[in-house]
């Protein structure tokens, strides 16, 4: 397999060669020696990961996962039903295959046979049903909303289940790729002794310090994965400390490199930087569409035309971000609306719409916080400057990051927010833009949109489905209250001896599965 053929469909997934071309254009030094990921995988070695995105309060219970470190050890110990493949389509993991009945309301999932848990138990339908039900009904699970459409799960055979939805959803398999939905044995409750089907078993769990796992005895049920003898995941929340540790060889891989210093990291002779373009966090301002002055769509359009997206990306993210087009769907995602034109920075249009809204003395106050996302304040200040050129006064109010999500977000009329990538465009849209969504942070409620989205869901014809999703995105872009100005790139750093670490359209660190996907040269 030649790696250069890896440039996929949209061309937005950046593999190492593309990255190096980009780096050369930026005038950065780069060595081409280790670009080959096609060599046959070797067994052995301990992968030392240094990561940000966790704390001393992390738990092994997947219902509470919300950040990178738990997601990473989750995929080491367990598997999901489905994973997202490199082409953005769902691929079977513990589900061997599935089939939707016409209307996509009823789904039959065939469970893989002969897959052992650490305890020796063999996976069957009861385990899967129990695991899925952990996220339904009365639960604290972060996946509760994703699973809300499921009305019933029934066992058809020892390795077959029937899932009934309240309304059709052709994208159901993608939902099961969510990192909360890990498959545990039936009636499993003791999270301190994890029992999973993953490649590794737990050795030490010290949340906030390190998580150590080792490869299970015998062959992993995935023939082409699970090459390391063990994984030592260390919590290194300080970005500078992570980079030093990587450069000096104390760790083999680090996540979330700082865009401001990544050009220096690339110069280190022992390190590869893997950039996954436009799949990271969606950075946005959200205005409440039912609160003045944002009730007027002209005002909202003024907000959208008045932001200089490229300038923010160049200055705050040092070019490591993609333009946002006012929805949370990223260009790297399937069903991204390519035909909706990218909104430009146009002070004249912003001034025009602002005047048309007829609220010249309206107070526009944007509440921002580093607790919303790092760099939010800088983005807001640049936004303020850009709006000034359109003759609009924007007040930027800095608020505390502590308690931001409970006190400011969903309450302030105009404030900063970030959205993570979800398994599919459907989840992405449903989560924030459906009228009854818990997280409808723009209070944008359009029955027309809801209808269109549900129609798209139930549509099994891919082309028609894409058309409907595109219409949905167009409606948001033209009428919604979200100013999504940038979508971050993921920047991972690897030692040159780590192989198989290709960028993935879903999450960073190979979809957080580098532990089972990678190997040492």
């Amino acid at each position, binding site marked *: 397999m030649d790696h250069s053929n890896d440039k996929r469909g949209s061309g937005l997934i950046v593999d190492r060669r593309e990255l190096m071309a980009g780096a050369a254009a930026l005038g950065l030094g780069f060595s081409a020696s280790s670009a080959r990921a096609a060599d046959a995988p070797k067994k052995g070695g301990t992968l030392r990961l240094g990561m940000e995105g966790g704390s001393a309060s992390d738990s092994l219970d997947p219902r509470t996962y919300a950040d990178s470190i738990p997601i990473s050890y989750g995929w080491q110990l367990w598997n999901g039903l489905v994973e997202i493949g490199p082409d953005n389509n769902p691929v079977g993991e513990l589900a061997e295959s599935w089939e939707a009945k016409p209307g996509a309301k009823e789904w039959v999932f065939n469970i893989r046979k002969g897959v052992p848990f650490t305890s020796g138990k063999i996976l069957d339908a009861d385990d899967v049903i129990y695991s899925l039900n952990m996220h339904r009904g009365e639960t604290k699970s972060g996946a509760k909303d994703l699973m809300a459409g499921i009305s019933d799960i029934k066992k058809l055979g020892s390795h077959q289940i029937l899932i009934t939805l309240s309304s059709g959803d052709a994208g159901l398999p993608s939902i099961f790729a969510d990192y909360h939905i890990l498959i545990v044995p039936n009636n499993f409750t003791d999270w301190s002794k994890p029992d999973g089907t993953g490649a590794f078993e737990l050795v030490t769990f010290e949340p906030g310090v390190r998580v150590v796992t080792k490869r299970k005895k015998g062959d992993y049920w995935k023939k082409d994965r699970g090459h390391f003898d063990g994984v030592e995941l*260390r919590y290194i929340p300080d970005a500078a400390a992570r980079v030093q540790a990587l450069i000096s060889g104390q760790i083999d891989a680090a996540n979330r490199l700082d865009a401001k210093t990544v050009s220096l990291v690339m110069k280190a002779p022992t390190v590869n930087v893997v950039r996954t373009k436009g799949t990271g966090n969606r950075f946005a301002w959200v205005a409440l569409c039912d609160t003045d002055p944002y009730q007027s769509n002209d005002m909202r359009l003024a907000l959208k035309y008045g932001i200089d997206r490229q300038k923010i990306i160049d200055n705050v993210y040092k070019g490591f971000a993609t333009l946002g087009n006012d929805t949370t769907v990223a260009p790297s995602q399937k069903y991204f609306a390519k035909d909706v034109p990218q909104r430009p920075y146009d002070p004249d249009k912003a001034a025009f719409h602002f005047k048309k809204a007829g609220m010249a003395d309206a107070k526009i106050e944007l509440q921002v916080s580093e607790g919303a996302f790092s760099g939010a304040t800088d983005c807001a200040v640049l936004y303020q400057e850009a709006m000034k050129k359109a003759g609009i006064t924007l007040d930027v109010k800095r608020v505390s990051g502590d308690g931001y999500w409970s006190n400011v977000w969903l309450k302030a009329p105009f404030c900063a927010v970030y959205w993570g990538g979800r398994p599919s465009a459907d989840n992405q849209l449903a989560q924030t833009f459906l009228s009854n969504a818990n997280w409808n942070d723009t209070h944008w409620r359009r029955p027309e949109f809801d209808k269109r989205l549900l129609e798209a869901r139930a549509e099994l014809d891919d082309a028609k489905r894409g058309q409907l999703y595109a219409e949905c995105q167009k409606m948001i872009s033209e009428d919604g209250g979200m100013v999504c100005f940038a979508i971050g790139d993921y920047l991972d750093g690897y030692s040159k001896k780590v192989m198989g670490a290709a960028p993935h359209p879903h999450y960073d660190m190979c979809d957080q599965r580098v532990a089972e996907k990678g190997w040492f040269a």
Partner: protein
Amino acid sequence: MLRLIATRFALGLLTLLAVSVLIFICTQILPGDVASAVLGQQATPESLKVFRAELGLDKPAYLRYLQWLLGVLHGDFGKSLTNGRVIIDELAPRFINTLFLASYAAVIAVPLAVGLGILSAIREGRLTDRLANILTLIAISVPEFFVAYILIIVFAIKLAWFPSLATVDSDMGLGMRTYVAFLPALTLTLVVMAHMLRMTRNSVLSIMSTPYIEMAFLKGLTRSRVVAWHALPNALGPIVSVVALNLAYLVVGVVVVENVFVYPGVGQYMVDAVAKRDVPVIQACGLVFAAVFVTLNTVADILAMLANPRLRRRR
């Protein structure tokens, strides 16, 4: 003397009780609770309700406090609200790590600072004095993370003598620990030296201007003998208390250094707990920290009294 120690001990316990009440009240005033902090942006009203009921957060605050207090009196610090792990099992190894790093830094810093302080006093105004003062002042004037990064650049990256990650774990022997934790210990040494050095120097010098010292000089004694035998014992009181204060700082105030060197101490544990509103963990850390402060201050007072009999009299 014994009575005094007993009184101080009782007062210390009272302080701890007051601290625990204060911390509890503060955590109640903070916006949000553990459920909303853990679920963060993923929280929905229903999942919050389920989470809160699971943790017993629906009970009134004073009841939760009394329950906690009852547990602590029985030696049970309870379980973490966020991940259900037994707090004492999590806290104990971290506290040992913190104490190890603090003692490591103290073993270097205290003799060095006090020695240099006395030397500065003996050679007041001369080059040694000036140099010691200027260098330690520079070290204390820059933020500790800056000192840490400088040390990392020099010793971890350029010279590659020491690791920049100081993650110690329970399997490590003493030798390995000492090696791995050298850079954070050095950073802390540089941070606390100036205070102790200057205090030693100044308290010795202030004694030097008293008549009995002049008398000693008139007897024909050398300056170093006057400083070491006549001035120092009387200057010990303030020196001991400033050393105690700095030792306490080494235990409770090192979260920045822990963070830069990824050292698994109590500081980061407590910061994580505060961010997640994990009240029992915050309480346990707060109690431990307060206990360290109270103990060190009591010891300092007792030592000062031993060195200076005048302080033993009650007025």
